[in-house]
């Protein structure tokens, strides 16, 4: 990124970010992990903690990637990667799968995003590049339907532009849907119409984090007291 971070500040890498999110998912939750970074979260659920992963193409109980010689051609996740099924898993068709999503049966969905706004709006499916065909997949269903929507993304774009914004500039996926954002620099809750920083990577300052956002941030109360 073109943003220069102070010495000693280490942005979370993809796996570290996935692991950070995984740590917050309690046992027993039904969770859909979006394509890309969110998919990695599956690999970081602590051993022995039963979290049931849903895939919109009709699977509950997604397991890890299979060894090369045990690939089942009919068993892929929503990102079309080969996966396995854990004991207790099940298959169903797309209408039943989206009954789970639209009907509010998923405890959590984690998606990537281009932008997240102070009011929880998320934009993650379309840009203004009209030369390419749009593709939405299940993003709108998941964003509108899951009980909680968390976003996993870099704090700023590769060009250094803010992704935490006052209002999304890209086309919306869903209004007011996001409750929590995990970036490579911080964890932020969306509450009372604004971003609350609940955690920063070691060495990161609130002032810099604020400078890297296009919307006002505030510190969570316990942190503000010691800031």
């Amino acid at each position, binding site marked *: 990124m073109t943003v220069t971070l102070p010495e000693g500040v280490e942005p979370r890498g993809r796996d570290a970010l996935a692991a950070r999110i995984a740590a917050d998912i309690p046992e027993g939750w039904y969770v859909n992990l979006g394509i890309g970074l969110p998919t990695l979260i599956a690999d970081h659920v602590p051993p022995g903690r039963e979290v*049931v992963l849903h895939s919109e193409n009709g699977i509950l109980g997604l397991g890890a990637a299979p060894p090369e010689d045990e690939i089942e051609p009919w068993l892929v996740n929503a990102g079309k990667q080969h996966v396995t099924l854990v004991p207790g*898993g*099940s298959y169903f068709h797309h*209408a039943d799968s989206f*009954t789970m999503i*639209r*009907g509010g049966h998923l405890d959590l969905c984690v998606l990537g995003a281009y932008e997240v706004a102070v009011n929880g709006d998320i934009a993650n499916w379309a840009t203004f590049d009209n030369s390419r065909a749009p593709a939405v997949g299940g993003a709108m269903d998941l964003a509108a339907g899951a009980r909680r929507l968390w976003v996993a993304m870099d704090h700023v774009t590769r060009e250094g532009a803010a992704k935490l914004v006052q209002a999304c500039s890209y086309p919306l996926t869903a209004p007011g849907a996001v409750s929590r954002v995990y970036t490579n620099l911080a964890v932020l809750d969306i509450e009372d119409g604004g971003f609350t920083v609940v955690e920063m990577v070691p060495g990161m300052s609130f002032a810099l984090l604020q400078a890297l956002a296009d919307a006002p941030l505030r510190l969570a109360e316990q942190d503000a007291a010691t800031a």
Partner: protein
Amino acid sequence: MIDKFAASIAEAIGPLPDGSTVLLGGFGAVGQADQLIEGLIETGARELTVVANNAGYGRIGLARLLELGHVRKLICSFPRIAGSTIFETLYSSGRLELELVPQGTLAERMRAAGAGIPAFYTATSVGTSLAEGKPVLEVDGKTYVREYALSGDLALVEAWAGDRWGNLTYKMAGRNFNPIVATAATRTVAQVHNVAELGELDPEAIVTPGIFVDSLIHLPQEEWA
């Protein structure tokens, strides 16, 4: 470890406020969770709205719930079956409100609630007294009536086998409304005849995935097994 098996019917059902809406699986006696309905009686909850295809028979299960005066309103497609004398007495004396819904509309309204569909249109009942006062939509020259999702605070399910994640299978025509009500309530409780180890149920043949089930109780009925 996820383990949705409860130690008792009372624990499986949990507390239930007065005025709750309870969805019952079952078609007549087949696939109706009579023991859970007894547990529902034990909660003492009153002023209930009960959704079921039929209105019970004899003096057990739903009929007993009605007889004890716990139910304010019944939403039902075919309340009058052989032996439904308790319902008929209550209804004819004006002590029970009845909302009559065509059977397929009843199923679809609960399916819609489970699927996050707040309303839909159907040709069923168009041109009849059951469509009176309902908004209509014309599509390709045909008239349809709007029906609304029907959700519950509690669903009581009878299933054949279940595992600790709440995955369920049913037996024959015992399936009926059970997988539908399971999707449509805030809390879904199942009584199962058989306990399966996790992974023992065929993933291709699980009818109700555990995501829809909050609690199970194992009630073996040896004489039927």
